[in-house]
């Protein structure tokens, strides 16, 4: 018989198994499908976000282009541009501003208008290629009526089509729209001339880009512009990727966890199918089919199934990603100010990687079965072992591996550093714990057996231990999912408690006003002096500079009792506030200590036009802020900083009068909603950002638990098929079928309960790792860990309910099977 023909026959034979066991097949498929879906969904989210950062960063900065900005204010005269050009400086003007478009009355659509000059744009800037990529329409871009390049997302948000001319809320008409995918979401790219007109900034620009060529950066600025311009390092978008890495790593870890849990199902189903098909395989071999053909047949079957499950999983993953994307986008914007397009578009690589994961995962999960099939002797009896009945040696080996992993985890987590290593430690901890689970459960059962009274009870305990190996994979999945839920839930709630407490401290003032220019600051100051309700005005100044490789936010304050009473300090040297007021001391955020490695007592020198040496006097908590921060004296900061710092005012007044004052300030000083805000609103906004940040985490967690429940269900379901031969003798001795069914249910529930009990300490350990190791590595702050017993109870309840549901049907079926089938057990010895 030709090989292909034989293979076809083998395949038909193998597939007949799934026809007879559709639920088992369904379990196999759904396991891989869910695993692929969750993994690829998370990857889609990550890819989407990274794509958005890349576009934002590369509009100007292929490699973080440095630029020249005004020393005073945010605008510089176009004549400074031409003065530099005429001295040979290859600068290129950029003007940026916000435009509002009608959407709803209260909530207009805000987009950033970016004006460029494509002829002088440095070669590194992709904005030039964006202009170029719009169909050789450079002339149209430069000349009236011009072009507005817009990303596909913004086009949808504007509800417009290419070629349309849309108007802003103040009825300014944009040049006709043209779509270009390399434009970052939320941005509109026009020629600088149109930008000046639309933003009413004729003859003005925000900054001058310069090619990333050190010879220009080292050259002194020409005297006639040096007093007005200063260097600004590459834009902060480049930091975005780095800052958000930890967020994405968290997502990836959760996705991987879900994938592994899904693979448990696949592994279980494959193992069962193999055990059940031992006879079949032996018969095939006996009929003369070569071992190679059988193996190729098994492998082909596996790959075909994996292909189907993988493709379906990818589709589901796409849906999951689409469903979670708005929350992830909101988290990223709230946490990091990163704008992420809320429309999914995925490249072929995503599909291929996802499919690769599905195939690889299926292969991995089936490796041991394939190995056994390859070594199966032809003439060995087709013993239908109770599936997965492993020798105790195998259990011992598994436990040993688990213990090694646990030891590795302890080693990594206590001595290692770095986020990736921390996650590796976490993975070792979880996997190690999961591998040790069967042994721990077995020990527990042995303990229980000691208290057994009567033969049925003895049988119950022994049988439970016997069954452990069959259920162990499902229980391991349950353990992982539960521990992840306890751990992540604990971290999120700890964070929430800490965060709210911190907000109370940090937002000690009742209202906040922010100025966007020194003139406006003066107007606000004058206005505040006429407000009788205000008890105290605490002026603040803020500047962002670079220190080392990182952006540094410097907050300048005028020392006041409010700060000493409320500022959320973690460590403080004696006399700290006095030294800070004198302009010689600074408080730094926890992130600073983490990033730069210096702490209280150390000296910091800020460079700039003039070096400024400060002693670190203390450390404070600054949750939710990815950037290092520093608190100094406001007047000293204004003296040192060469640009114009942002000015603001924190106001102390009776809380009930805060919102009226803010409304009045908005009205009389024509401040925007963000420039004048009361404490309650800031708090509301911050808490909202916080909640949305963890929506995606929570959703993934719940999905993981659901996958674990399915794993348990499918394991039980498949087990119930092989239970009959074990139970029939008891039935024959007079135990009713109903009683036996109850015992079966109780056994599973008992095992699930034990697993839940073990999962809680493991989850707490996980929470500790998340809070004390991962969080510190990822965000730079450490949280106190709180305990939430109610949360554990809820979870345990949920787990038991899912175990109950998973047990109910198989048990019920067992109880309902006809007496004839029970009798037949004795007729077909060893049959199933």
């Amino acid at each position, binding site marked *: 018989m030709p090989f292909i023909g034989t293979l076809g026959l083998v395949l038909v034979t193998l597939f007949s198994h799934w026809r007879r066991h559709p639920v088992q097949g369904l379990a196999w498929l759904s396991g891989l499908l869910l695993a692929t879906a969750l993994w690829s969904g998370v990857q889609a989210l990550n890819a989407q976000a990274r794509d958005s950062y890349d576009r934002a960063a590369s509009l100007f900065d292929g490699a973080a282009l440095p630029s020249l900005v005004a020393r005073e204010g945010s605008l510089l005269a*176009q*004549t400074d*541009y*031409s003065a530099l*050009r*005429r*001295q*040979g400086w*290859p600068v290129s*003007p950029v003007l940026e501003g916000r435009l509002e478009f009608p959407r709803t009355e209260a909530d207009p659509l805000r987009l950033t208008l970016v004006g460029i*000059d*494509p*002829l*002088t*744009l*440095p*070669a590194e800037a992709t904005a*030039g*290629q964006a*202009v*170029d990529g719009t169909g*050789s329409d*450079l*002339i149209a871009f*430069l*000349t*009236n009526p*011009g072009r507005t390049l817009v990303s596909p997302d913004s086009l949808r948000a504007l509800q417009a089509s290419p070629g349309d001319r849309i108007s802003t809320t103040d009825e300014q008409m944009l040049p006709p729209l043209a779509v270009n995918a390399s434009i970052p979401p939320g941005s509109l790219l026009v*020629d*600088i*001339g*149109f930008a*000046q007109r639309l933003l009413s900034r004729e003859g003005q620009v925000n900054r001058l880009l310069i090619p990333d060529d050190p010879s220009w950066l080292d050259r002194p600025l020409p005297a006639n512009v040096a007093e007005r311009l200063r260097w600004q390092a590459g834009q902060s978008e480049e930091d975005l990727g780095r800052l958000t890495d930890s967020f994405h790593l968290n997502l990836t870890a959760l996705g991987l966890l879900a994938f592994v849990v899904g693979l448990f199902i696949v592994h279980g189903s494959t193992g069962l199918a193999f055990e059940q098909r031992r006879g079949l395989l032996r018969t095939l071999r006996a009929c003369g089919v070569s071992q190679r053909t059988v193996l190729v047949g098994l492998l082909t079957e596996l790959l075909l199934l994996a292909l189907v499950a993988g493709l379906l999983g990818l589709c589901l993953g796409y849906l999951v990603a689409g469903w979670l994307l708005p929350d992830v986008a909101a988290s990223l914007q709230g946490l990091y100010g990163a704008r992420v397009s809320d429309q999914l578009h995925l490249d072929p690589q995503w599909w291929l990687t996802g499919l690769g994961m599905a195939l690889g995962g299926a292969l991995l999960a089936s490796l041991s079965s394939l190995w056994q099939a390859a070594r199966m002797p032809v003439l060995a009896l087709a013993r239908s072992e109770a599936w997965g009945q492993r020798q105790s040696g195998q259990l011992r080996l598994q436990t040993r591996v688990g213990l090694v992993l646990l030891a590795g985890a302890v080693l990594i987590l206590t001595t290692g550093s770095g986020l990736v290593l921390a996650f590796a430690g976490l993975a070792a901890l979880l996997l190690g714990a999961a591998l040790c689970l069967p042994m721990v459960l077995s020990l527990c059962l042995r303990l229980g057996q000691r208290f057994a009274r009567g033969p049925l009870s003895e049988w119950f305990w022994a049988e439970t231990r016997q069954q452990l190996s069959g259920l162990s994979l499902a229980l391991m999945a349950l353990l992982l999912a539960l521990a992840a839920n306890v751990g992540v839930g604990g971290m999120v709630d700890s964070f929430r408690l800490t965060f709210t407490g911190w907000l109370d401290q940090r937002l000690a003032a009742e209202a906040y006003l922010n100025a966007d220019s020194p003139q406006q600051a003066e107007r606000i100051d004058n206005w505040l002096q006429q407000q009788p309700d205000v008890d105290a005005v605490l002026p603040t100044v803020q500047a962002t500079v670079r220190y080392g490789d990182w952006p540094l936010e410097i907050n300048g304050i005028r020392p006041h009792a409010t700060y000493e009473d409320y500022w959320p300090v973690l460590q403080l040297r004696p006399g700290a506030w006095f030294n800070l007021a004198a302009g010689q001391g600074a408080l730094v955020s926890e992130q600073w200590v983490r990033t730069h490695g210096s702490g209280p007592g150390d000296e910091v020198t800020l460079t700039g036009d003039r070096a400024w040496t400060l002693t670190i006097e203390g450390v404070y908590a600054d949750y939710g802020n990815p950037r290092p921060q520093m608190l100094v004296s406001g007047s000293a900061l204004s003296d040192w900083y060469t640009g114009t710092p942002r000015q603001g005012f924190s106001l102390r007044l009776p809380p009930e009068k805060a919102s009226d004052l803010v409304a009045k300030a908005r009205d009389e000083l024509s401040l925007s909603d963000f420039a004048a805000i009361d404490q309650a609103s800031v708090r509301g906004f911050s808490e909202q950002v916080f909640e949305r940040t963890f929506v995606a985490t929570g959703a993934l967690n719940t999905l993981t638990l659901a996958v674990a429940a399915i794993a348990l269900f499918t394991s039980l379901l498949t087990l119930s098929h092989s239970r009959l031969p074990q139970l029939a003798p008891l039935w024959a001795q007079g135990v009713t079928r109903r009683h036996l069914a109850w015992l079966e249910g109780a056994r599973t529930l008992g095992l699930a309960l034990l697993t839940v009990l073990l999962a809680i300490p493991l989850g707490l350990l996980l929470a500790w790792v998340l809070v004390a190791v991962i969080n510190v590595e990822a965000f730079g702050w450490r949280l106190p860990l709180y305990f939430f017993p109610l949360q554990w109870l809820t979870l345990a309840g949920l787990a038991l309910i899912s175990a109950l549901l998973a047990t109910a049907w198989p048990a019920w079926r067992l109880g309902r099977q006809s007496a004839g089938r029970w009798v037949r057990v004795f007729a077909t010895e060893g049959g199933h």
Partner: protein
Amino acid sequence: MRLLLISLALILAACSDPTPGGDDAVTQGFAGLGGDADEFAQVDPSQPLQFPEDHAAHPEYRIEWWYATANLQDQQGRRYGIQWTLFRQALEPEAQLGDWQDGQVWMAHVGLTTAEDHWQGERFGRSGGGQAGVVTEPFYQAWLDDWSLKEVRAPGSERSPSALDPLSHLRLQADTDDFAYDLVLQTDQSLVLHGDDGFSRKSERGQASWYYSQPFYQVNGRLTLPDGEQVTVRGDGWLDREWSSQPLAPEQQGWDWFSLQLDSGERVMLFRLREDDDDESFRAGTWISVAGEATPLTPQQIDMTPTETTEVAGRTVPVGWRLRLPDFGLDIDTHPLNPQSWMDTSIPYWEGPVEFSGSHTGRGYLEMTGY
């Protein structure tokens, strides 16, 4: 950026609507200069040139250039050629200079040639923002970035109406990554108007441009060579000013253009516009006496024959020529200082210094486009 440059070259090369069914490069002449240009201002000989007004830019015309070349020599006798060109191109008719949306694009080319090497630079710019432009007040200057051509005047002095032409004393500067120059161009002779008082015909079918020159500059200054060496140089210079909306006929593929500075003091300008299937290309030129009197040359008075070709940038270019003006007793052979004087710019062409011998000796510049 390369993409941008290419697209700019496309603008400059294909500015008007392509002729259906035809190859643009062939049907529109070199760099699209033969394209249809009805909407732009047309060269009208009934409106004579006025100076100094016509030294300014003419944005209503499609294309305009300021073209300076010089043959120079240092104290060791080493020879150099330099080129400085500013092009103005209107992207749309009825454009006004100075606004970002003035519909004008500026392009500048600079070149430095020695017997062994040739270097070049190219830049683009806009008059919006003040990056590029041409002004006549308070003193004359044409610039793109720091590449500039500026009138030299004693500080604080006013230019009186009776004073010499603003172009008679200029400072020419350019600075690239490879080389730089800073030269002073000076003459006390008048401008030379080509053709019919500056109305220069480019084909038998009516294509024409406004065209005048200052061919009598004495040049002094300093070159900075790519190795950083600074050399003091002197020599002869030539400035061309030309503008038009359609200087070439559609069939004309390019031109061969000579500016010759004879050792005997005369100056000669010659050009030939090559057509597809016509050996008898359109020819024109000007014989300029030592005193600066210009005599237009008819096509029949001019004989231009390539004698020697060279491979440059994958093309065959005629770098040696026999030039004959029998009516003026001129019969010379020209040889390039460097046959590889190829301007590898977005619109590439050959431009370099030449010297000649025969009935007369002297030096000049040769420009060949459309090869």
